[in-house]
Structures are given as C-alpha cells and as structure tokens.
C-alpha cells in the first residue's frame, strides 16, 4: 500500500496530522496515484448527484471504520483481523444503505448495487490494514477522511465532466444554453458510457503528473 505506517508513532503534532489529511488529496491520492477503487468511479459517475452521495457515503464509512478499528486495535486478534475489518466495514455499509433507502430513496435506487460494493472498495480495507491497525484514533480518523476525500474529489470531478458533456445538465439542472443546441451542439452520448470515465480519470492523472513530476513512475 503506502509507507505511512513507517512514520514515527509518538508524534501527534499538527503538521503531521495535516499531512494525513492532505496527502491523499494530492500526491498520495488513492485513485490517481494508488489506482484503487477504480470500479466504482466508472460505474456511478454518470451524474454529479450520484457521485456526491457516493463520496459522502465513502467518507462516512471510512471515517468511522478507521476510528473503530483504531479503538479496537489492541484487542483485535491478529489471526482474524481481516474478518474483523470486513465485519466493521460491512456493518457500516449496511447502515449507510439503510439510511439512503429511508431518506434519499431515488438516489439509493440509482446507486443500487454500488452502495453494497463499498464493502469491496479496496481503499477502505487498505487504510484499515495499513494505518488504523497501528495508529491512534485521531490520526486514523484524519487518514480515513483524507483518503475518502481524495477518492471523493476525483469522483466529483469525473461526475462533473460526464454530466455536463454527456447530458448537458448539472445536478439535474440544464446548464448548456439552448442556443448552443440550436446551432447544432449535441450532448456526447459516449460520455455516459463507462469508457469515458476511465479516460476522464486518465486525463486527471495526466494533468496531475504534469504538474508534479515526482509522481511519474512511482505507482
């Protein structure tokens, strides 16, 4: 995974904690750099709204999962630690799913199977295994939120471009002015299909590496 857990254990200084939160947004991004969690990026980014709900759900699941595992870390028997992690993640995901079904039913229908698939999102278990098992709750919480936010902003960026160019809307509201359609502009149907999500992610990775040369060839 990453080398975060080799850092000194005792320090609770704020610069280090801030790094936990901000590194995954940029140079240690779970999608762009570690290339984890791609499947859901392809599947649920057709619209900004579903991307947003998915991002929030993952932030909630990862924040709580990291804190819970970190609190339990000295009690978890190493031999069944993966099972314990999975149980915690699965329970949180079921909770999120139930809450979505109760309060935003339409969106939960659109996300359908992908809420359940948060369980298999490798970012979450990766962070539990690599970080929360060896760190105190507060840094673990920041690490979870940071990584989920790193996942989330890529999701939102891809969702933004796919919805604007694929459907001409944002959050369901038309944003492409009518006169453009009148002079022959058309929504790009390809943007709605999963391959364009992959290409959009590719473009984001390209731009990021162009700006930060150190990232080239490290993943």
């Amino acid at each position: 995974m990453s080398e975060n857990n080799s850092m000194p254990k005792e320090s609770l200084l704020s610069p280090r904690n801030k790094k936990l939160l901000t590194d995954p947004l940029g140079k240690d991004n779970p999608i762009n750099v570690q290339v984890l969690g791609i499947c859901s990026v392809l599947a649920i980014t057709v619209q900004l709204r579903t991307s947003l709900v998915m991002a929030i759900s993952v932030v909630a699941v990862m924040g709580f999962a990291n804190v819970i595992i970190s609190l339990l870390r000295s009690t978890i028997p190493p031999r069944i630690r993966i099972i314990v992690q999975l149980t915690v993640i699965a329970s949180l995901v079921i909770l999120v799913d139930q809450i979505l079904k109760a309060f935003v039913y339409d969106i939960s229908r659109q996300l359908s199977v992908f809420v359940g698939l948060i369980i298999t999102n490798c970012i979450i278990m990766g962070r539990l295994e690599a970080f929360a098992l060896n760190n105190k709750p507060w840094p673990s919480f920041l690490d979870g939120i940071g990584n989920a936010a790193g996942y989330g902003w890529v999701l939102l960026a891809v969702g933004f471009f796919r919805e604007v160019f694929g459907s001409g809307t944002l959050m369901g509201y038309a944003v492409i002015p009518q006169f453009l359609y009148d002079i022959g502009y058309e929504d790009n149907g390809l943007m709605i299909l999963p391959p364009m999500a992959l290409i959009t992610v590719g473009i984001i990775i390209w731009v990021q590496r162009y700006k930060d040369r150190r990232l080239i060839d490290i993943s």
Partner: protein
Amino acid sequence: MSNRYIFLYASAMVIIVALVLSGAATLLRPLQERNMRIEKMQNILSTINIPAPRGEAEELFDRYIIETKIVNYQGEEVEGDAFEVDLQDENRKDPSERDLPVFIAEVDGENYYIMPVRGGGLWGPIWGYISLESDLATIYGANFDHASETPGLGAEIADREFEEQFRGKRIFDEDSNFRSVRVVKGRAPEDDPHAVDGISGGTITSNGVQRMLRDGLGIYEPYFKKIRTS
C-alpha cells in the same frame, strides 16, 4: 492470543453487530416502506403516462386511480385492498386461490385497466405493471423493473425504450383468443401486433418478460371477458 479469546471476540463482535443492524433496520422500516409505496404509485401512474414526482405521487394516484379491486381467477370480485396485495405471495398459491389486483384509472374521460405482473428473470424476480385501454385488449403502457438483472443487458427491460414498444400491442387477436405479447429474439415483425423486440444479450430476461406477461395477464382473461360482455 488463545483460541478461546479469538472465539469469544468473534462471538461478541457478531452479537453487537447484529443488535446494531437490526435496531437500525427496525427504526428505519416505516420510512423505507413509505418510499416503496410511493415508488409503486409512480410505477402504476407511469403506465398511463402520468409522470409523478416523488412529492406528488400520492396526490396524483388518488386523483387518477378511480377504483381498485381484487378479482379471482373466475373474474369475480373479492374483498380486500388491491394496493396491499403482494404478488410474490400470490404467485406461490394455487391459481384458483390467488388475489388478482386491478387498478382502474381515468384520464381525460378514458378508462384504463392496470394489472400488476411478476415473474423471474435471469438472476432474480422481475415485475411490472401493464395498462390496457378500455377494449381490454390493447396495451396502453407498460412499466417493468427487476431486482438484479445484468446492467446493460437484461436490466434494460426497465428502460423507457423497451417499455414504449408495448404501447398499442394487443394481447387478444381478432377472434378474442388470448395471445399475450411475445418478446422476440432479434427483431419482431413490424406488422405483428403480438410481438416486441427482445434485448440482445438479455434473452433469458426477455423470455422471462414474455412468460410473465403470458401467465400474469392470462389469469385475468375471465375477468376481461366478463367486463367486455357487460
């Protein structure tokens, strides 16, 4: 750590998780059930071309659905609330004991009869609503949904494009024999009023729809005949 500890740890974890999850499910059930009721209303209304936003579904349902009733396999009316009938339970019963719901809608002076259908696709149940014009032979609208058909293949039965094909198709031929509507692999003949195009790559789901219509609408035949003659 001893095996004893591991077993105790795992058991305690499972019990706590079970308590939390069942607690959450019980608390949220009323809200979820209301959402499902509204979705059912939206599906029923969509077969008669009434788009119903979530907030207005209940009001629109009350406005357009003028009568609901339950009939039996001989077409006789029976007591009960048609909206609450769960086809999943009904389909397990012997046909002669089934409760068959009918929703009668009135839009711009025209009457429409809406029947729920339910069957099996490739991976799980599929279901839908069919509305018939007042001749009880011509399909006015169809709405399908599924639990777990393959996205992009079988799942397309829930797409508008697939559902639209059913408009104007006939479930009875000129001699009033029940013919249902076939879902044909590839292209259905243009002039065939009893067939629609199937879904490429979704043949088993398409066949499921065909079977669901044949069984689900066929059982209403005595009721249709009764209405038509009266």
